[in-house]
């Protein structure tokens, strides 16, 4: 009897012991999971995941959806039939009441968002509860254009990466938000700064720069993702920037250049490449098959005063392709040579199959220009296949700026501003958000001011003229505008297309709306308490699809500021 009791006791002890052990093990796991996700410790973003993002209906891994930057999300739980039932799932308030331009990144149920002035938050994507909060220690010199914005992190491996207003690249531990390393990208005193999200690929972090308003020398840089060491630099203004002396822009209009005077000035002043501008404002598209990086380059410095920078000002206002491994030049196409209107190339390029002019399908590159056209290129040599019908009014284009100012449309914000487009590849349509914002362009001779704002004149909004915006759908195989929705105010932020047949975009007045991608019919709307001027994203947690967007307003167009991240799902 003693024996049995003993063994019962032993058994009991064993069972309790095991249970305790199991419970403890469970607790430890639960603790890690609290800092991690419901799907185990799957916080590591692999290159394979990034390469397959276009078909990933759980995560949102890239600023613009995938390496092709299609902003086409493959989930269709939310679709044209039920989007009317979309309701607020949760709201997160950040500490920073200032414009939000972040694209939320979601990795296995963990969401990363950034704010103005470089805060990063990690949130539980299902509940909206904070996991961690990082505040960048900003240096005293921040020289940026158009607001202290940030467009988001890139998650890669076990880290998240962000560019900062004081021109640094920081790497944070994705689980804890601790700073792992930071690299100084360039000297902020000279006008360099970052508002873009970086792009990670093949062990490299790629990033461009702000500064076209400050006389920088623009670039794309590649950093080692583990160490922060600089791997290569592509300078967007080559030492011979004069080019071919083009007299017409990509749409065939005369740019009113005085080539003779410019050639004489070039002889006298020398090549202006050192302070020529050419920032790269946004993420690059990457063709994984050919190892090619595609990006668009911003305006020359100073924006309005061209006489001090004779020549075509390569590669400003251009689509450029470089080799991913080395950063070596592959091809380019310049939209506007010797631009004096700041109608630069900023909306990120999209890679997709397009129809060429002989009806054959080829690899193509799309770009929505500040000029208000969608440009369609061959990916292999950057040649222009076609440009679309204009999405916005073209008035007096081109007219040279004068001291007293000349009116022209598009205004200097476009067209299409930095807002990324989205495509629906099944419909071969691309969606752009536009501005109708009449401005006068003023020019004033100004020497290089050593890192201060250098516009060479001024842009003025015409106060008593009406402004509005558009959402425009363009067939990129024909260039036709398929539908257009007019909005109350000029649009800035971004758009998301989904396999549910929808496009989502927000407005400065707080309306966040869903439209039928085929017809442009308004299917759903929700009023936020601040301007919705950030690119939306989508993700799936626990079998539920969410749409998420930042609502913080905008500095450039002075839309109502806020601090909210809004997530939506279908109601019951």
């Amino acid at each position: 009897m003693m024996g049995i009791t003993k063994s019962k006791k032993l058994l009991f002890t064993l069972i309790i012991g095991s249970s305790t052990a199991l419970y403890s093990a469970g607790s430890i796991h639960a603790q890690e999971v609290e800092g991690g996700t419901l799907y185990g410790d799957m916080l590591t973003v692999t290159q394979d995941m990034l390469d397959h993002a276009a078909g990933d209906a759980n995560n949102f891994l890239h600023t613009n959806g995938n390496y092709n930057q299609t902003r086409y999300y493959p989930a269709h739980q939310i679709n044209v039939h039920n989007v009317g039932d979309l309701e607020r799932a949760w709201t997160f308030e950040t500490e920073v009441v200032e414009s939000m331009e972040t694209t939320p990144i979601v990795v296995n149920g963990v969401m990363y968002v950034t704010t103005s002035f470089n805060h990063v938050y990690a949130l539980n994507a299902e509940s909206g509860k904070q996991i961690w909060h990082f505040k960048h220690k900003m240096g005293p010199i921040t020289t940026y254009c158009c607001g202290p914005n940030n467009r988001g992190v890139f998650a890669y491996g076990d880290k998240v990466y962000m560019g900062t207003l004081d021109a640094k690249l920081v790497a944070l531990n994705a689980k804890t938000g601790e700073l792992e390393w930071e690299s100084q990208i360039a000297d902020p005193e000279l006008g360099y700064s970052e508002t873009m999200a970086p792009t990670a690929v093949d062990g490299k972090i790629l990033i461009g720069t702000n500064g076209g308003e400050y006389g920088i020398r623009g670039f794309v840089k590649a950093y080692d993702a583990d160490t922060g060491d600089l791997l290569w630099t592509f300078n967007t203004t080559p030492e011979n920037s004069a080019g071919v002396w083009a007299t017409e822009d990509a749409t065939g209009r005369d740019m009113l250049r005085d080539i003779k005077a410019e050639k004489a000035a070039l002889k006298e002043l020398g090549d202006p490449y050192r302070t020529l501008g050419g920032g790269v404002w946004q993420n690059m598209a990457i063709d994984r098959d050919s190892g090619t990086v595609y990006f668009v380059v911003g305006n020359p410095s100073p924006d309005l005063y061209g006489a001090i920078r004779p020549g075509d000002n390569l590669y400003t206002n251009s689509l450029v392709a470089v080799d991913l491994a080395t950063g070596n030049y592959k091809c380019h196409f310049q939209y506007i040579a010797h631009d004096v209107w700041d109608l630069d190339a900023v909306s990120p390029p999209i890679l997709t199959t397009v129809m060429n002019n002989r009806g054959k399908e080829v690899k193509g590159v799309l770009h929505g220009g500040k000029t208000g056209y969608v440009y369609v290129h061959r990916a292999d040599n950057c040649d222009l296949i076609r440009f679309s019908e204009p999405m916005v009014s073209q008035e007096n284009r081109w007219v040279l700026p004068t001291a007293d100012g000349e009116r022209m449309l598009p205004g200097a914000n476009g067209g299409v501003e930095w807002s990324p487009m989205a495509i629906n590849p099944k419909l071969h349509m691309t969606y752009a958000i536009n501005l109708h914002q009449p401005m006068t362009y003023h020019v004033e001779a100004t020497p290089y001011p050593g890192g201060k704002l250098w516009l060479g004149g001024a842009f003025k909004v015409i106060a008593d003229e009406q402004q509005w915006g558009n959402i425009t759908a363009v067939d990129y195989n024909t260039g036709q505008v398929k539908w257009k929705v007019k909005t109350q105010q000029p649009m800035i932020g971004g758009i998301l297309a989904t396999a549910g047949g929808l496009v989502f975009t927000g407005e400065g007045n707080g309306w966040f709306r869903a439209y039928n991608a085929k017809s442009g019919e308004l299917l759903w709307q929700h009023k936020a308490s601040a301007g919705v001027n950030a690119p939306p994203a989508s993700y799936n947690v626990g079998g539920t699809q969410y749409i998420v967007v930042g609502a913080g307003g905008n500095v450039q167009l002075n839309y109502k500021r806020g601090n909210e991240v809004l997530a939506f799902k279908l109601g019951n």
Partner: protein
Amino acid sequence: MHGMYMTRIMSALFFCLIAGYSQSEEAADEFAAVREIIGSCQVCHGEEGASTQQQYPILAGQEFYYLYVQLKDFKSGLRADPIMGPLASALEKEQMQLVAQYFSEQSWPQYEYATDDNQTNVGLTVIAAGQCVACHLGAFHGNSRVPRLAGQHLEYLTKTMLDFKSKSRNNSPAKGSLMASFGDEQLIAVAQYLSALGDDSESVR
């Protein structure tokens, strides 16, 4: 003799103690090296830079880098001013940075400036046309090289804009043609609007 000697030693000890005490106080003061300079700034710009005289701008709580750049520009003559020019010329870079840092860390004073609806409307129209918010931000608190304008002295703001317009102030190239494109009355309305702006920060860092 002995007494005098003792007195001398005591005095020496006493002064050593005082000196020692002052030194440790100074060691704790990161602005020790520029206290005297700060003192002379305050003669015009007020206690801690919270100027009460309209022609001398408030420095208390102004952006560090903006203040530093202005001192550099005064010294080089890029910004011409008969009072500040000579004063800044006497400063070295490190001194300028410390002075700028000191004033940037003080609190911006709240003065009561009034404006009427009409001036506000004119001011807001000009601000929208000039896209001022794009640099000075929504609450006009500025950032880094871009100065805070909200709640600055009316007379100083007015003079500044008119000086940019007439090109008697030249150290901000972005300002010239922009100011010149507005009428004086419009700029005065903007100054009134800005000086009356309170401290309600729309923008939190």
